[in-house]
């Protein structure tokens, strides 16, 4: 009966789900999304730097052809008053990513380590929960640099990012230099460091994931507190917190199991 069909159709659309139906619907949709359970994030920091960065990325790609992978709009996402500080030279590999994931820094407090030799700041990211069947195609470490009023505009600093290597019995943990660049005191914006190789290494060898170290030096080569250089840490504004972002490409075809 057509009229009955219409009623059924109409009621199907508008009827509110009962709690049991709702739970089943949730389970079904989670299954479609490939998630074993509903994620329960500890923090609700939607205004933190990483979620905001990801939301910008989402908005940028949402108008594109959905059949294609993400094409990464590689302009500085957080435009600030100053010029963009850094961009990756080659972003071809970023287009075609199936998944993009940001990672929060797990170091609880900014320990502005002041060893005998030098100041440094540590960062750690948990890459153990990356989506199944995905390979890292690119990864970046992002840290915000604020304008420093107390400094001369033409003053420069050297910022270096190191990968912390595991300790051996005969020596302390070593550092492997990933990138180094000179920044002006007057500059402001996001600094972006390519950590693709390191991320791949960490994914393959989770035990070797001992994080990153950042060292800031003045023109005389003396290490200085990163805070003095305007680098935002955990005590800075939420939307300027350092984070890591990785781009993934599916390595295998996911076939949903028949239920």
């Amino acid at each position, binding site marked *: 009966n057509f009229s009955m069909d219409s009623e059924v159709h109409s009621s199907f659309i508008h009827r509110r789900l009962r709690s049991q139906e709702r739970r089943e619907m949730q389970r079904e*949709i989670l299954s479609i999304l490939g998630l074993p359970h509903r994620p329960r994030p500890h923090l*609700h920091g939607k205004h933190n730097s*990483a*979620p905001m960065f990801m939301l910008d990325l989402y908005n940028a790609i949402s108008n594109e052809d959905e059949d294609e992978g993400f094409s990464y709009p590689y302009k500085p996402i957080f435009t600030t008053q100053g010029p963009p500080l850094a961009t990756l030279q080659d972003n071809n590999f970023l287009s075609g990513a199936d998944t993009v994931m940001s990672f929060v820094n797990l170091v609880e407090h900014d320990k502005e380590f002041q060893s005998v030799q030098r100041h440094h700041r540590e960062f750690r990211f948990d890459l153990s929960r990356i989506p199944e069947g995905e390979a890292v195609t690119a990864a970046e470490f992002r840290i915000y640099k604020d304008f420093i009023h107390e400094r001369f505009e033409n003053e420069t600093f050297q910022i270096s990012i190191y990968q912390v290597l595991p300790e051996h019995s005969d020596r302390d943990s070593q550092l492997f230099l990933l990138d180094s660049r000179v920044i002006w005191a007057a500059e402001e914006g996001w600094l972006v460091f390519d950590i693709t190789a390191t991320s791949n290494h960490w994914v393959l060898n989770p035990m070797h994931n001992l994080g990153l170290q950042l060292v800031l030096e003045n023109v005389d080569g003396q290490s200085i507190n990163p805070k003095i250089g305007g680098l935002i840490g955990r005590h800075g504004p939420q939307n300027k917190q350092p984070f890591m972002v990785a781009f993934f490409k599916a390595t295998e075809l996911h076939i949903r199991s028949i239920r």
Partner: protein
Amino acid sequence: SAPGKQRNQNRSKSPKTQEALRVSSFAENSSADQRQACKKHELYVSFRDLGWQDWIIAPEGYAAYYCEGECAFPLNSYMNATNHAIVQTLVHFINPETVPKPCCAPTQLHAISVLYFDDSSNVILKKYRNMVVRACGCH
């Protein structure tokens, strides 16, 4: 095949008119049979209504659509019928007890991107393919 008389009458009409008539005739038959042709129906999946706004950042939901309706002769072009569907319908006519009609199912599916937190408060932006029905057809 159409009887000779009818064929002569139709000869003066353009193929488009014939097609329009056939569609019209089918529509009449459908209403007589009180059946609905295979087509796309709206279905909005609301992540907000599912109570997931604490972990799904975007979108709030998406228009998923679904396919529903009868796949029966004549399988008009707007139904995106496959050649196999026509054969399937014929065989169904011959042996309706054992051979089912063609299925009304999606012929074109598109992806959506979902932005969400994981358990560790990391954020994932993932493209999920085959989530939105763009077109339905008979298979």
